[in-house]
């Protein structure tokens, strides 16, 4: 990952969402992007120029644009029409983003489009986040990485965030994924956690 001093940046065309520029690079704000927050509080995974990424819950394309600066291709899945309008605008300006309008919980809708990927990144506000990851694991190469951004308040508002965190990790482990890192994203995002897993080589 590219850092200038303490600041995480990415190399690419600026002006996507009025982000700050630093020495010609785009500042990747940890308060706006949970993935950037993960690189500040933990290790995550090193993004490389040969990587292909499946990004579930792409929203307005803010984080997607930074990921696309680092990797070879990003398959960005988003369901809601309003953010999709913005995502398409980002997509038209970058050759390596494939924007797909579909429900991340139903991979059969976009299966004919998505190649095997090295990283599965998931940031959807759904109660069954772990199940959605598992359903999308077919796209992940053996040895590939899963990054799950857990919105504990979207899973169940009545449960304690820590409880949701442990339940999710348990269901990922019992599905055969190896959990490499688990970390809360405080102080950048409250009640949000990141879980990094590896799909075992067969």
């Amino acid at each position: 990952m590219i850092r200038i001093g303490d600041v995480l940046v990415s190399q690419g065309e600026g002006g996507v969402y009025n982000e700050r520029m630093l020495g010609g690079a785009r500042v990747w704000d940890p308060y706006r992007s949970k993935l950037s927050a993960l690189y500040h509080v933990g290790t995550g995974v090193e993004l490389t120029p040969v990587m292909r990424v499946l990004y579930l819950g792409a929203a307005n394309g803010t984080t997607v644009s930074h990921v696309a600066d680092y990797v070879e291709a990003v398959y960005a899945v988003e369901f809601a029409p309003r953010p999709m309008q913005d995502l398409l605008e980002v997509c038209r300006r970058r050759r390596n983003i494939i924007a797909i309008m579909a429900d991340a919980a139903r991979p059969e809708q976009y299966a004919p489009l998505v190649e095997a990927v090295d990283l599965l990144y998931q940031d959807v506000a759904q109660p069954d986040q772990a199940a959605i990851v598992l359903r999308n694991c077919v796209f992940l190469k053996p040895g590939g990485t899963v990054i799950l951004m857990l919105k504990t308040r979207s899973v169940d508002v009545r449960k304690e965030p820590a409880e949701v965190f442990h339940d999710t990790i348990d269901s990922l482990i019992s599905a055969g994924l190896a959990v490499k890192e688990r970390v809360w994203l405080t102080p950048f995002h409250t009640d949000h956690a990141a879980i990094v897993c590896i799909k075992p080589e067969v």
Partner: protein
Amino acid sequence: MQSYWFGDVEDGRCTLFIGDSHAIIDRVQSIITSMDTFVPPDWEQAVLCGACRDRHEYLARLQAVCIAAAERSIREHYSRKDAELLQMVRTLDEIDTVINLLSEKVAEWYFIRHPAFSRKYRRTPAHALVKTMREKSKGALGKVAGEIEHLATTRTVLAKEVSARANDVIPNTSALIGGLVAARLMSHAGGLLPLSRLPASAIQVLGARTALFAHLKTRSPCPKHGIIFQHRRVHNAPKEVRGKVSRVLAGKLAIAARLDFFRGVAEPDFLDKAQRRIDATVKRGEP
């Protein structure tokens, strides 16, 4: 056989899909993939197939197809009849809030200029007060009051449009409680589809979230009505039967919303029976 966006692959042999940009979108949106036997597409296969020359062209073509498909989905989504009504009624409610807030602020300002002024014993409605303030104030204060009046005119126009649009989009629901309230119900539910999926008991207390959760958490009484209180047959009903009326009305609304979603035209038979049933409840208080 595996079906991909560029063609079908079977036993290592690939059949290229031939068709224009519309046909390929239709294909992408209609392929049914069985996830148990699914193998992700491979760009080298697409090259062998003749869909593209290299990796660069593969991504470029795929991107173009995906953008076109997404644009079509967005257009379809927005052309649903309820999409615009939703934004219209939300704007209307926001204008109401703005008018109230501004009127209050301007009144405070006006009171400073006229220390002897008081609204006690006068029964001045808010819009009359705004008019007085516009006429009797110089400079910015009068201008702001004028703008509030202007906004109120716009609000009236918009309210009429919302009502007319609701009569068209959700005819049955609108016939039971009026276009404006029907549109508000739909906006709270998040659209016509979500509204048609709600049970009657939820429609009855839609818009009374605070009271409902207070009831579920503490021992406070449960709310009898939410948005549907704005309908005259509910708020004009005698207090003893108000709960009954809103329950019966909500029951009929749930049916009406489903009729609106699945048929989209007014059903005179249903409406006639439903209206009589509601009116009977208002009159006699029968369940």
